[in-house]
């Protein structure tokens, strides 16, 4: 039995300690600005205010582990990210464009993003740290079959053989968190990712299946990909093209200013790509003239007969 595998497993689904988990997001900015934890620490040590706070809390000079603990304690207050949107929140009203601001209002309202990707001072990372099936896996051809087998396994006492069948020769990862919990509700569900720096971390989703943020918006706008385990919170949104542009503009304000140039480049690349091709876009679904499940249900009979 591979111990390392075991550990990864625990880290994966339920990190043994929150503190440990809290160190992970910090790697995100670390990757970009700080080659390692030590550099990260240095950046913090230069900040008198943080230093004070750390001393108070831990009665010693800070170290990387303390940093992790502190972040766990503060619900991962992000110390490194300096994005236009954050500047805007801090009172610089010119930090983001009107278009992006309109996008934020949509993000907070009609587009319904904020519930899963919350953005507030206590939790500024844009993730609810929960697992949802937003229908990405369902776009893979074998997902339905895998899901069926998975439910079947749950239904049967002598599941060894079935587990075997499932374990061999299939792309299990599409079942998402289910493979860790064996919990029916977790089929096809993945953890809500942080969306900081999202502008420059393409391609998107766990399988990298979406090339641009316009594709991401098209995915949400049509109400995801219908499947029996789809999170019901994913509804068709009926966003107009203009509104989609606005949300995308907002998402591009979440990138650290140190990557402003890359961000701008990526924005233009993606926009150009989106102008050419929007493979996920489905207006009839977005406008609710065709409903999620409608095609599945009405075609199921005919394929059966």
């Amino acid at each position, binding site marked *: *039995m*591979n111990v390392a*595998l*075991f550990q*990864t*497993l625990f880290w*994966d*689904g*339920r990190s043994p300690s929150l503190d440990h988990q809290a160190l*992970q*997001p910090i*790697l*995100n900015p670390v*990757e*970009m600005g700080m080659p390692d934890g030590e550099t990260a620490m240095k950046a913090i040590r230069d900040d008198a205010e943080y230093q004070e706070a750390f001393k108070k809390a831990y009665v010693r000079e800070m170290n990387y582990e303390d940093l992790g603990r502190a972040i766990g304690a503060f619900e991962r207050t992000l110390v490194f990210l300096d994005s236009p949107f954050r500047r805007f929140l801090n009172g610089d009203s010119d930090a983001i464009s009107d278009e992006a601001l309109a996008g934020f209002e949509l993000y907070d309202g009609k587009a319904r993003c904020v*519930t899963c990707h919350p953005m507030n001072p206590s939790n500024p990372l844009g993730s609810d740290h929960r697992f949802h*099936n937003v229908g990405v896996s369902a776009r893979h051809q074998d997902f339905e079959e895998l899901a*069926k087998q998975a*439910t079947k396994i*749950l*239904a049967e006492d002598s599941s*060894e053989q079935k*587990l*075997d069948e499932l*374990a*061999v020769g299939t792309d*299990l*990862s599409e079942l998402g968190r289910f*493979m860790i*919990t*064996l*919990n*029916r*509700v977790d089929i096809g569900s993945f*953890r809500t*990712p*942080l969306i900081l*720096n999202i502008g420059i*971390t393409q391609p998107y989703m*766990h*399988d*990298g299946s979406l090339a641009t943020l316009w594709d991401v918006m098209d995915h949400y706008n049509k109400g995801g990909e*219908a499947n*029996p385990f789809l*999170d*019901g*919170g994913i*509804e068709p949104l009926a966003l107009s093209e203009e509104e989609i542009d606005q949300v995308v503009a907002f998402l591009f304000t979440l990138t650290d200013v140190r990557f402003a140039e*890359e961000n701008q*480049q*990526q924005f233009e690349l993606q926009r150009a790509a989106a102008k050419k091709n929007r493979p996920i876009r489905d207006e009839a679904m977005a406008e609710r003239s065709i*409903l*999620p*499940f*409608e095609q*599945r*249900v009405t075609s*199921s*009979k005919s394929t*059966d007969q």
Partner: protein
Amino acid sequence: MATHPSVETKYMEERRELFHGIRNLERRSFLKVSAAALGASAGLAYPHSFTPVSVAQGAEDTGSDQAFRFAYVSDSHLYEKDVNDRFVRGLLRAVDDVNNLDPQPDFVFYGGDLAQLGQEKELELGAQILKNLKAPLRIMVGEHDWYLDMGQKWQELFGDPTYSFDHKGVHFVVLNSVVEADFWTERNMTPMERMMTVAGLDNSLQSPFTVGQTQRKWLQDDLEKLSDDARLIILSHSPLYKLYKPWNFWTDDAEEVQAILNRFKNVVVIHGHTHQLLTNRIGNIHFHGVLSTAWPWPYAPEGMPELTIEMSRPDPFNPNDGCGDGEVHVHPDGLVDKIYNLWNRNPVSVTAAYTASGGSDSVPPKPNRPSY
């Protein structure tokens, strides 16, 4: 240009590696891994969270007079699609769910309130969608289907609302339990006003639900030929007992109906209308509610049956939360396991062992967000 994989992407990469690792393990180790994962999450999840939707125990089909299972879908409250897409989507999702059951249930029972305002187009749409069910359909009427044209269109589509049938040794009776005394003539209401009054759960102008004398007589006759230990399942829209009158979670002649069922060893009543997990037992009669595909209802502020383990208050962000469909597994003794297939939640089983023991065995998981 350089790409900067996000932490989550990295996380996913590691996950992928893990899965690759799993695939290459031999079976025993794999099971160990899964078991460990299971054990580790047991503290977080409900003890029953692994209850599958297709529980096989006691439900093998071994010929007539034996165990079997049927599915249910209920309370879809359809408007026309361009009036309200959400409720249509709910019913579609339920049909998709039930069609995915493997093996297929013996039949699908529809628990009433297919339409929201009893309009022809609503009922036709419902009938159209239900045609896509792979398993045969049995259907019951609800007050939302009835009070616009007093059941005309519904009966045209689905036939008599009161009927009985036998399936694998179980006698099923379907009642129209939403008969209301005339409150509309005196108030000079139009059919739509009457419908709107009945459609408001907290509208107190309407009369309480009844089964009524005619149907009680019919029921008496229908059951006459059955022996006292016959397996008997009654399907009604309203709960056949008195729970909370202000919302018509109520049947006004419940005692009279119960009296007819008294002589049987075991009776199971499955009812719609209440859109929630609901369990009750009065003597030999075991009552189970069903879920709605449209929206969940709060629990009544008083009069809750002791046996009921409430479902958690739903999160309205997910309009499907607290909604769903489910299954009924019929045991050889006629009692049932009632499976609530809550969408995006773990299914909850209210077993025969639970109701038969009066709530001491096989207790379903308790809600973490109880009503208050």
